[in-house]
């Protein structure tokens, strides 16, 4: 490892030709012409369409289901009620262990039956013919009420909970306590303590205490969940699905359906947006139905189904008490962090508890986390899951304390910001991080520059907040092959959801010192590709990128060895540039990549094929921090908040492709702005979703978002390729807090409930 680091530091000295340069996406032409194939674009012979019946109750017992009338409907091929499903290993404690509930329905819209037909309209018609008799049970909707001892239970008691999916998003080696003892709606809890918080509050000059609420929000990828599955005569299951996690799905399907992993081929089709929400959901049902009917089955969620029954991000209620001395030192932080997990465990309580006390040095901490079940759809990841909820709380507090003490918000943050070696609330020390550098960069942004100029004019305000994400860790591998014409193929197993394959091409081209065009990259399926963890937790470039680099270095070494043998020289006497290997300085002793390719692929070729292999694992995090500034205008009569400007500074470690890094920063920031301004899944007292469409679930439109300023900060990570660190997720984290602080700058009041709708602004102003 030491050797690898040495090589990298040497590399940092020289000018790169491929990495660090803005590059357009290798798959761009297919996407702008509409040629790219997404799961819903697939057509297979004999394919059937699945339509799914959802529960009209948030909590109910199924007394009976009768599919006979639906079966008689002309054109219907099959109807599946819980009793008709093929055998699978059920686990009712986990969402991914259940196709349809046998008995107890736990959320509004939960799938209870399905129909297959070759015409999707016919399948949909038949849904109305399935007769389900329910016995309504009392729904538990509010997480705080759910925690009370007197609350009805959300569900029958949990069995073993599998937390493998959450660990793909954040991997920190800390476990939460699963609930034990008397049944309650608290699925799990955890506590981090350090020092003595009461003593810390005593020492302080200002103490601030508030409760912060954030809403259930939806990933709202434009492509709904989409899957096609087929089961052939040889007993092989193929699944084409819009997922970030093909190998994870393979492993889960293998265990649940009892097929060996080498008989399952999961292909991650082009993902039309995932953001953490497309890991593993409907694939089990589609695979089981395809196995039952032995025909290809396609299931595309309608937008409404996706909003009702996919895995949105949780609401949270954060009680926070913090204190600071007159000179701006944070002395104590006490918090109760409650995440509403919906009907199954899986809420990001752990990262929430780590991050609420993870941005600043603080000697006295007491953080208590709860993961609470309710009769709402179970939650999943959304870009840095759980982070925005707690960041809203702590970053509002930092501003409030600074304001009370008359201190500069950037200075106060710089004074307390964590650095390498500082402990997380769990006690683990941070590796090298760039929080301070992000704060310094945002101070230079155009938006922050308007802070003092625009203040007090026309209800405008400028605010900022920081945020961070720790990232996931999983092994990864890659293969780099030399083709007979001298071009290069790279094969990986990671779904490309952010332009990572383009970055892999850059890395490979850098190592082999060739123009980018000579390299192509493929995401293979789970039977052809080398293993990679899920494309989640911002880890793809950090982990798979490093494997690609190793594989390219391996291929380079093999090519040099071939040349060395031809020239009867040592590999270190050779240089490689622009597709040619040459003996030091020689004009005659050269071998083109094409020649090398032929020498290692032709009939009776003298050398074996060049196949570079790279495989890594890492336990070292490369956390990503961000600082973000917002400029807003508040219409104090209507309560309307207009974002006039927004800037994101983020530590990317080393931006292998600055164009896609900026895109990640701007995209994540826009989702943070949605959380701040308008996104909220609304439920009635019976647990029914009121706004399951893209009209009433208001993600920002072009009219809502000004161009977002992206400022890349580079504090190299210790293990990432060329110093790259996690990138995808941090950008979503700070939006709500930054906008909240900007609103407070404009109108003097902090809003404690996000999103900051006009009605909430007016209430904060006392106008309603």
């Amino acid at each position, binding site marked *: 490892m030491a050797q690898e680091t040495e090589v990298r530091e040497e590399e940092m000295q020289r000018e790169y030709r491929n990495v660090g340069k803005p590059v357009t996406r290798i798959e761009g032409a297919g996407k702008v012409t*509409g040629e790219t194939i997404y799961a819903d674009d697939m057509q297979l012979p004999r394919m059937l369409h699945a339509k799914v019946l959802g529960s009209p109750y948030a909590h109910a017992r199924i007394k009976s289901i009768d599919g006979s009338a639906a079966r008689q409907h002309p054109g219907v091929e099959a109807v599946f009620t819980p009793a008709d499903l093929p055998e699978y290993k059920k686990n009712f404690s986990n969402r991914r262990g259940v196709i349809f509930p046998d008995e107890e329905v736990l959320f509004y819209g939960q799938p209870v039956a399905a129909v297959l037909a070759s015409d999707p309209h016919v399948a949909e018609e038949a849904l109305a013919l399935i007769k389900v008799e329910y016995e309504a049970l009392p729904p538990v909707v509010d997480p705080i009420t759910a925690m009370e001892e007197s609350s009805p239970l959300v569900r029958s008691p949990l069995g073993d909970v599998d937390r493998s999916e959450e660990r793909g998003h954040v991997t920190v080696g800390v476990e939460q306590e699963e609930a034990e003892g008397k049944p309650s709606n608290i699925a799990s809890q955890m506590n981090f303590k350090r020092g003595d918080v009461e003593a810390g509050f005593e020492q302080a000059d200002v103490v601030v205490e508030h409760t912060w609420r954030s809403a259930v929000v939806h990933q709202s990828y434009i492509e709904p969940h989409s899957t096609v599955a087929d089961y052939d005569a040889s007993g092989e299951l193929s699944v084409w699905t819009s997922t970030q996690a093909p190998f994870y799905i393979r492993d889960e399907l293998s265990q649940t359906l009892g097929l060996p992993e080498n008989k399952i081929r999961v292909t991650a089709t082009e993902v*039309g947006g995932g953001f953490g929400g497309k890991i593993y959901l409907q694939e089990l049902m589609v695979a089981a139905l395809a196995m039952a009917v032995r025909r290809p089955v396609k299931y595309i969620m309608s937008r409404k189904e996706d909003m009702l029954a996919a895995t949105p991000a949780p609401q949270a209620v954060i009680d926070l008490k913090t204190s600071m001395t007159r000179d701006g030192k944070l002395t104590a932080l006490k918090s109760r962090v409650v995440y509403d997990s919906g009907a199954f465990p899986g809420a990001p309580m752990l990262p929430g508890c780590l991050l609420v006390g993870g941005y600043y040095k603080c000697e006295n901490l007491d953080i208590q986390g709860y993961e609470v079940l309710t009769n709402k759809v179970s939650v999943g990841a959304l870009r840095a899951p759980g982070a925005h909820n707690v960041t809203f709380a702590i970053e509002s507090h930092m501003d409030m304390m600074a304001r009370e003490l008359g201190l500069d918000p950037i200075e106060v943050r710089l004074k307390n910001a964590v650095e390498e070696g500082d402990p997380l609330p769990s006690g683990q020390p941070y590796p090298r991080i760039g929080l301070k550098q992000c704060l310094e960069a945002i101070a230079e942004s155009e938006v922050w520059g308007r802070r003092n100029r625009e203040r007090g004019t026309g209800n405008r305000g400028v605010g900022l907040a920081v945020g961070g994400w720790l990232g996931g860790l999983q092994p990864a591998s890659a293969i780099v092959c030399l083709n007979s014409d001298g071009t290069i193929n790279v094969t990986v197993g990671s779904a490309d959801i952010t332009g990572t394959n383009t970055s892999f091409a850059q890395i490979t081209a850098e190592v082999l010192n060739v123009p980018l065009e000579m390299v192509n990259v493929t995401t293979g399926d789970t039977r052809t590709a080398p293993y990679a963890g899920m494309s989640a937790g911002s880890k793809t470039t950090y982990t798979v990128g490093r494997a690609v680099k190793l594989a390219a270095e391996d291929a380079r070494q093999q090519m040099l060895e071939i040349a060395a043998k031809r020239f009867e020289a040592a590999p270190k006497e050779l240089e490689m540039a622009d597709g040619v290997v040459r003996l030091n300085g020689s004009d005659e002793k050269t071998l083109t990549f094409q020649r090398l390719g032929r020498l290692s692929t032709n009939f009776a070729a003298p050398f074996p094929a060049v196949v570079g292999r790279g495989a890594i694992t890492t336990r070292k995090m490369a956390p990503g921090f961000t600082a973000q500034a917002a400029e807003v205008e508040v219409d104090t009569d209507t309560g309307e908040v207009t974002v006039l400007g927004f800037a994101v500074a983020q530590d990317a470690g080393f931006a292998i492709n600055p164009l896609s890094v900026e895109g990640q920063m701007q995209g994540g920031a826009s989702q943070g702005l949605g959380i701040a301004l308008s996104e909220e899944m609304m439920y009635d007292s019976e647990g029914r979703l009121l706004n399951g469409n893209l009209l009433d679930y208001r993600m920002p439109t072009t009219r809502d978002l000004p161009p977002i300023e992206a400022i890349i900060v580079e504090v190299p990570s210790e293990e990432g390729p060329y110093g790259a660190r996690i990138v995808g997720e941090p950008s979503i984290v700070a939006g709500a807090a930054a906008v909240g602080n900007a609103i407070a700058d404009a109108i003097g009041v902090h809003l404690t409930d996000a999103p900051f709708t006009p009605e909430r602004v007016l209430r904060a102003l006392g106008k309603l």
Partner: protein
Amino acid sequence: MPKQLITLIVNGRRTEVAVEPRWTLLEMVREELRLSGSKEGCGTGDCGACSMIVDGRLVTSCLMLATQVDGRDVVTIEGLAKNGRLHPVQQAFIDTGGVQCGFCTPGMIMAAKSLLDRTPSPTLEEVREGLAGNLCRCTGYAKIYEAVMHAANAGK
């Protein structure tokens, strides 16, 4: 329900299609004509991923019945590139990084083309107004604004 024969121009070519009355234009184009570039993101006209140009006007094809385009002129994303050369708007989306997951991209490009047909040199505000019916979840729109401004300049 028996199918109805309709005749229309799709991307410049006269086409006859037998359609069911309940098919939308989007469904007909994707499933029957097998032009799968136009996407369905919501089915309720709120996301714009299915945008096409009918008789010169931008529409959400998920809310138009196939029968309603009988005798009309339809342009889909597949009709933009000519002889293997990308339309300037398509090229600009690639060059500026306006493409990420790609699912909103066909509809977004149709909206951008339609905007530039009406307003060849739009201001940033006009771009933001012209694309307001097309949701993108990946880019935060910044690079899409750049792409459209870039394409407008390229078209001069």
